[in-house]
């Protein structure tokens, strides 16, 4: 099953409420995915590169990490610890060095970007959102996922969203059937998935297409040609938000648009708390049709 939600604000007024609205959307989708939950949120540009990291033993791993990295990079590093995750603000150009450091320490990198932060854990959506304080988060857009695992184990790394390039993330409802072959194709292009999860393959696919110069719409169009299986994808980029469903379209999807926002939900229930939803244009996205918004 799985539940997916997304909210893309067209105006700045609702920015302080983004996390609050997304949290309600996420919790409503608990029935569709009670085993893990996650969100990617596009907040303020940190004026540098942000890296979201995760550890199963945060007290140990994050203790003194800010100082260690500052020393290692010989430039100031800031760290904000949120439960099992931490958001680092890094000096430009240091990503590769920090990634190598994290790999050595066994700390997982959830995503990098100028504005995107990614938080995901095993547990009920309500609990996961509370642990990370998602309600208090502000931003321009965000996507979320509640998981009922089918293709790989219930682990933090198996939860969505998947971020496979700077400020890019993807959530998925469905299952892909050609992910093992695509995994090899993508690895050759330098976008090797890190987990056994089929969805990460789709995220890597989109990242590879964007890296090749495609725009978000073209990259999403490509999923219809190159990925086999059932899918509804919701994708976030630094300035964009996109949706695509496979041609069979058996995974549910509904969208709502007002002058203030574009919202995506697996079910209409996810929209119940959105402001002005009673007057929103509500429709079901067509199969094999790409929808995307950019600001």
């Amino acid at each position, binding site marked *: 099953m799985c539940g997916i939600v997304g909210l893309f604000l067209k105006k700045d007024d609702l920015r302080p409420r983004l996390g609050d609205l997304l949290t309600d959307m996420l919790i409503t989708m608990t029935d569709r995915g009670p085993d893990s939950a996650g969100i990617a949120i596009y907040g303020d540009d940190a004026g540098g590169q942000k890296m979201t990291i995760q550890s199963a033993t945060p007290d140990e791993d994050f203790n003194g990490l800010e100082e260690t990295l500052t020393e290692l990079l010989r430039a100031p590093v800031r760290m904000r610890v949120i439960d099992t995750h931490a958001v680092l603000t890094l000096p430009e150009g240091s990503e590769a060095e920090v990634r190598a450091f994290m790999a050595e320490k066994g700390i997982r990198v959830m995503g990098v970007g100028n504005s995107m932060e990614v938080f995901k854990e095993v547990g009920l959506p309500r609990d996961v959102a509370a642990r990370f304080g998602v309600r208090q988060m502000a931003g321009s857009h965000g996507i979320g996922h509640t998981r009922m695992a089918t293709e790989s184990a219930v682990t933090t790394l198996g939860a969505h969203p998947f971020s496979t390039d700077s400020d890019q993330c993807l959530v998925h409802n469905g299952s892909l059937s050609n992910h093992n072959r695509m995994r090899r194709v993508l690895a050759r292009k330098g976008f090797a998935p890190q987990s056994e999860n089929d969805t990460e393959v789709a995220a890597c696919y989109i990242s590879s297409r964007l890296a090749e110069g495609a725009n978000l719409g073209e990259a999403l169009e490509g999923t219809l040609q190159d990925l086999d299986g059932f899918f509804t994808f919701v994708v976030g980029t630094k300035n964009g938000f996109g949706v695509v469903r496979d041609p069979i379209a058996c995974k549910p999807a509904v969208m709502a648009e007002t002058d203030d926002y574009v919202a995506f939900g697996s079910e209409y*229930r996810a929209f119940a708390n959105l402001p002005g939803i009673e007057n929103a244009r509500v429709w079901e996205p067509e199969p094999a049709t790409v929808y995307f918004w950019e600001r």
Partner: protein
Amino acid sequence: MQTIDMASTELRQLNSTLQAQSKEIVESDWVIENTRGAHALAVGLDAPINVTIKGSTGYYCAGMNKQANVHVTGSVGPGVAENMISGSVTVEGDASQYAGATGHGGLLNIKGNASSRCGISMKGIDIVVHGNIGHMSAFMAQSGNLVVLGNAGDALGDSLYEARLFVRGEVKSLGADCIEKEMRPEHMEFLADILKRAGADARPAEFRRYGSARKLYNFNVDHADEY
């Protein structure tokens, strides 16, 4: 008229209250508020009552309906009026997948669009869609009528039995064994009546009729090599 506020009512309470009208009708007009997209609203009704659902609903709204007239002011999720026996279900907005699936009778009247698999395996229900319908609609439809004022998606009427399909707009493609058929006087008469009942602004002469070529009914010995 009695109003039920779903903000303070459990779904089971709602459905059992409405279902109890089959024994004795204590109220014939019901309004359901604050549905917030809930699933399985007003299902299994079996009494000639009127139920208005304010707002949009989730899965399986008005499923297994018998006799009741259910009116949804918003849009509905997958499986609206699934397996309806009689009565009517009217949707002011759009309907998601498999609207009216396996329905045996009654009228499902969708004022907006219906998405994929509308009327799949219908068995006698009449469905009117004022907008468009999605792909694989009326798949294996056995009897009843599907009337579409807009366009139909891919593979309309695939593996069709004896349901009649009337489409005013374009049909993207016909499914296996579904063909266009002539419009005879009885079809015009039927359309005039159902369009009036559905409050649809269309003339019978604007529609084309599609039905089964009946080629899949029996095994064709010439195809033996293909198995």
